[in-house]
Each structure stands twice: as C-alpha cells, then as structure tokens.
C-alpha cells in the first residue's frame, strides 16, 4: 500500500543563516518533487517539511520532537556540526528508547570527521565529504601544482578551524614535503572586522597559496582584504562557493579563489542532469543549484528503499550500506564501515567566463579535468566501530 515517506528538514530558516538553510530546503523539496513525478520512492510519495532550528542545537531537539509527532522517520540536516552532533545523540537515544520507531539521519553538509570515525553511528549517513576528505582532495590537487612552494593556513579558532589546520599540515607534509608551511593562524570566530593585518602577515611570509576553512563573513572579508592588498597566490577554500560569496568577492577574486566541491553547474552534464539543474534554477530564481549531494541522497535513498522493498528506516539503512550509485559526476559509494559516501570532488575555480553564473551575476565556478579528484582518492582511514541493530 502506498504511504508517504516524510523527511524532516531541520535547519535554519530564519535569522542570519536562514538563506543558506532555505537553499537546502529548496533543493530537498525539488528533489522530492522530481522523484514524485517519477512515481516516488518505491511507490511512496516523498514529502519534505522544513523545521526551523535557528542553528541552535537545543532548538533542533525541540524541532526533532515536532517532527517525530508528525510521523517523520527521516531527518535531513547540514548546517552546523554542533546541531548534527546533538541530533545524532538524540536520534541514537530515541532509537534505543523507542524500538520500532527508528529514525534515520541524512547528513548533507555537517563535515566533522568524528561522525564517521570514533563517534560513528548506524543511524547516521553522510552524503558530503568530511573535512578531512576535503583536505585530502585539496592537497591532492596541490600535489600537482609545482609552483606552490609556500602555504599559509588560516582559520577560525574553533573545532572545525583547528581540524582543517591539522589536516592540512598532516597532508601537506605527506604529499609535498618540499612545501613550506609559512604560517598557521587562528582568529576568533566572527569577530574580525578588518583582515588587512592578517593579510600583511601572509604577504610578508611570502606565501604563494593560502588554505582556509573560513565561512560566512570571515571568509569573504579575508578574501577581499587579501585581494585588495595585492595577494596574488591561490586561495584554497572550503566554502568559497557558498551563497552570496561570489557577489561579495567580485571581479578581483577571479582565477584566484578556489573551492573544493562535489559539483558545479559548469561541469559537463548529461542532458537529463542539465534539465534537472535548469529546472531548479528556473523555479527558485533567487537561489543557485549548489548541493548535488541532495540529489544524490534522494536517489540513493530511493535505490535503497527499492532494494529493501521497504521504507522502514532500519531496512533502508541496511540497504544503504555499501551501495553504489551512478551519479551525474561519476560513481558514488556509501561506505559500509562508517556510512560515509565517497564521491568525485572538484577543485573549482572562481571565474567570470561561465555558462551558468551564480547569485544572478556574471561569476561562476569552473573545473577542468586536472581539478577532478577521484572518489577513491578521498578515502580516509576510519576508526569507526559500528554497532548494528539486529535485523
């Protein structure tokens, strides 16, 4: 009998992070709409509902209860590892305390590596690369760049910033021992107004590339200050492609700023996929197609449900383990050992010569073949020791 597969999207929908969350919700809804048009998941219609958590862990738990009351069995979330962590804990406890009402957590953007390592959990699946894997990808790309000799690492002073710095240091010394790390700097989160002094330090250090995990204003202000002061090396970012950044960075950043992503809209695309992307951008004119992982997640969910012939989260979770999916950018694998997806990554470059722009402006992101990092190359060792429920 046909049922509804309900996905609760728990992310910020108001406040400073509202726009980012709204983009995510749009893409989930669009993905659901597209799959429903094709008959849904295993014959069931998919329904995505947004729950505004204001990126607050406690508020997320209240929203989780709301979702549970509404009969939701799938949770999607991505903004903020603090929220993801709280949700993972809460969902684990819920599943333990309420057998038969298990809930599955589809993580589409929270990148703390611990979720798929020592804190790994059967109920959590991640469709984004974690921050260590992204660094793996960035440094793979750096490995091929002979002219990069000195690298400066700068980041926000909190767990993520520190993790990025540590991974960068470790990977660079392994892959390019000749590269000198000329600076490793942390600054408080969201407190710096003018990055010029930092940039002076970077320029004085003679760095020819800079790696940063910064996001939001910390990233944009850093990049603007760097370019204004004439820094001409590459700026390798995690979140350069995020909403609004292109407008804020402007022409000067072209060719200099790079971002590690699983997709950009100027990659070569199949007709079907191009239609999918165009359809999205036509429908949500204020928003850009960004999260390929959401489309991936929806498809993998559908495949798993069909394989298990059930939409019960426990069955779906077992089916997802080790599954492969031929996605628009190549083959994706959901690792069984830690529930982390492996997918091709791209070191995209900011460009003003693009077919599909972002932020309704002339800029966009491009990646050539050399910028492609194969899925297998992003694999990292895991310390995960998964405990699985009995089937």
């Amino acid at each position, binding site marked *: 009998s046909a049922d509804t597969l309900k996905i609760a999207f728990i992310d910020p929908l108001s406040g*400073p992070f509202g726009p980012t969350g709204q983009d995510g919700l749009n893409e989930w809804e669009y993905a659901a709409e597209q799959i429903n048009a094709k008959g849904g998941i295993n014959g069931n219609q998919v329904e995505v509902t947004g729950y505004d958590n204001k990126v607050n862990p406690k508020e997320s738990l209240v929203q989780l209860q709301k979702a549970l009351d509404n009969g939701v069995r799938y949770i999607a979330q991505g903004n903020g590892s603090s929220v993801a962590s709280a949700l993972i804990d809460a969902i684990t406890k819920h599943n333990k305390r309420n057998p038969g009402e298990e809930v599955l957590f589809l993580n589409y953007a929270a990148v703390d590596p611990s979720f798929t390592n020592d804190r790994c959990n059967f109920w959590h699946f991640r469709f984004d690369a974690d921050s260590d894997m992204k660094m793996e990808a960035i440094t793979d790309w750096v490995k091929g760049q002979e002219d990069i000799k000195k690298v400066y690492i700068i980041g926000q002073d909190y767990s993520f910033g520190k993790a990025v710095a540590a991974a960068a240091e470790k990977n660079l010394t392994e892959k390019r021992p000749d590269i000198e790390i000329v600076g490793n*700097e942390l600054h*408080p989160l969201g407190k710096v*107004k003018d990055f010029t*002094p930092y940039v002076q330090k970077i*320029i*004085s250090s003679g760095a020819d590339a800079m790696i940063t995990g910064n996001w939001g204003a910390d990233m944009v202000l850093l990049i603007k200050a760097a370019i*204004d002061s*004439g820094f001409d090396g590459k700026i390798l970012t995690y979140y350069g492609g995020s909403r609004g950044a292109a407008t804020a960075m*402007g022409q000067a950043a072209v060719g200099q700023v790079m971002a590690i992503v699983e997709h950009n809209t100027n990659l070569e695309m199949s007709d079907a996929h191009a239609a999918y992307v165009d359809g999205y951008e036509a429908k949500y004119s204020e928003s850009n197609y960004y999260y390929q992982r959401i489309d991936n997640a929806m498809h993998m969910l559908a495949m798993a449900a069909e394989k298990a012939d059930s939409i019960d989260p426990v069955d779906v979770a077992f089916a997802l383990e080790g599954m492969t999916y031929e996605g628009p950018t190549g083959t994706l694998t959901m690792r069984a050992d830690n529930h982390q997806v492996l997918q091709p990554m791209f070191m995209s470059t900011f460009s003003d010569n693009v077919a599909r722009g972002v932020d309704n402006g002339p800029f966009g992101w491009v990646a050539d073949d050399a910028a492609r990092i194969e899925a297998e190359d992003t694999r990292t060792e895991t310390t995960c020791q998964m405990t699985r429920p009995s089937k």
Partner: protein
Amino acid sequence: METIVFSLLNGVIYGLLLFMLSSGLTLIFSMMGVLNFAHASFYMLGAYFAYTISEASSFWVALIFAPILVGLVGALVEKYGLRTVHVNGHVAELLFTFGLAYLIDEVVKIIWGRNAVDYKVPELLDFPLFELFGAQYPAYRIFTLFVALAMLAGLWFILNRTRAGLIIQAALSHPHMVGHLGHNVPRIFMTVFGVGCALAGLAGVIGGNYLVTDPAMGVQMGPIVFVVVVVGGLGSLMGAFLAAMILGLLQTFAVAIDARFADIFGWLGLDATSELGSITIASLAPMIPFLMLVLVLMIRPRGLLGDREL
C-alpha cells in the same frame, strides 16, 4: 621594521574606520545619553542606500544623499518612537533601540534580499595607490582616511561650536526648564539623533564597499562601536578618536605577535602543548577591545578622556 611600519599604517587606518563607525554614536550617546543599539543597523542602512543610489546614478551622489536619507530615517525614528519612551528613562530608550535593530535587520532582508549586494568601490578610486614591502595600498583606503578626518572635524564643530550639546544635556535633567528658557527641545533632540544616524549612514557608505554589504553587516559591527565610545569616555570626541586609534593599533600589533602563552608564561610551568599554552597573542587580537572595555570600566569608569561617568 617592516612589521612595525605595516602595523602602524594598518592600525591607523583600522582605527579611523572604527572611529568613523562610532562617531555618530559618540554624538548621540554623549549628547542624549542614548546608547543606540541600532547604530550598526543605521550603518547598514547607509550601505544599502548607497548601493541603490549608486546603481541608479553614481557613488558620489550616494556619498551625499545616502547619509541624508539615513538621517531622515533616524529623525523619524526619534520623533515617532524614541520620544515616546524618553520619559521612561535611559533603559527604556536602550531597549527601544535594541528592538529597532531587530526590525531594521529584518526589513533590510525583505527589501534588498538576503544575499550580499554588489556594492562596489567607485572606479575612480579602485587602484592601488602605492606599494610597501610587496603589499599594495588601495586608494580607497586612503580616501577612507580623509573622510574619517573630515567627520572628526565636523563633529568637533557640532560639539564645540554649537550650544546644542549644552541644551540637550540640560534637557536630560530638567526638560521643562529648558523649554522655559526658550529652547525647542524636541526639535534639537530630533536633529541630533538624525545627525548621529546620518554619520552612521556615512560610515556605511564608506564601509559597505570596503567591507561587505549584506544583511549581517549590522550585527557584525554591533558591539565594537560601544567599546570605542565607552573606552573613549562619555562626552569626549577626542576620547573616542583616541580610543579608536588605540584599539586599532593594539589589535594590529597584536596580530603581528605570534608568541604563545607558553612562551610568555613558561616560567609558570605553562606547557606549549596545553590548550592554554598554545594560544597565541595574535589569535586573541580581536578580543582585545572587549578586554579593554571591561578593564577601563573597572579602573577608570569615565573612560580615557570622558568628562563624566557613564
């Protein structure tokens, strides 16, 4: 040597930027005693107005009209809002502006959208003015410097060459009496608040393209402007200026210091690998203003050059 020159130059420029941001608040706070929490929101309005105007005509038109528009908004806010709560005292006024900040932020999102807008530095000023030890100095940054100095001069005139300050201060203790002496108190209040907001708007015109114009810019700048005004001292323009410079310099110099706590307090047995020991001075630089704020209020509550306590 290189570091010192850099830090001096950057410190001065950052200090001037801070001064520019807080000058309007200095005016409002020292004259009316209102700690305007929405100050940074008016700064944001200035940037957005400037963006819209410069889209339609040019940056130079925006430079004149955006602050005026912000000033008008400020005057309206005073007339229809602040005035009503004035009788309930400073806390009520402060809370009013606290709520106003929420309001302006949300309205800006509705009108201009939730992304950053493309508010650019005018082409005339978009070139590196000079180069120093390999780093460029954009002309716009130097332009900023001059605008800040002009604001200082203008404010000095308002504060010292007009009696408005005296009249308002008097009205804070005995509003009726000031009326009986023949002064139109409500109009002066409205004007001062308007001018203060206009100054915030001007800072927005300049800061919006130097930094970024997006709906979060107000929240971002929020607390730092209070620090400048309070550390500088109530009623003292020079104090605010001095405080802005000191904060600017301290912060930039601190960024240049890579020493870790362990290097400094090693003799206390602090280990460089420990959490506390591995913190660098540089990483604390942005927190210096708040440390200053707390220390100054504890040790010298009237601020650096203030003529009276808060």
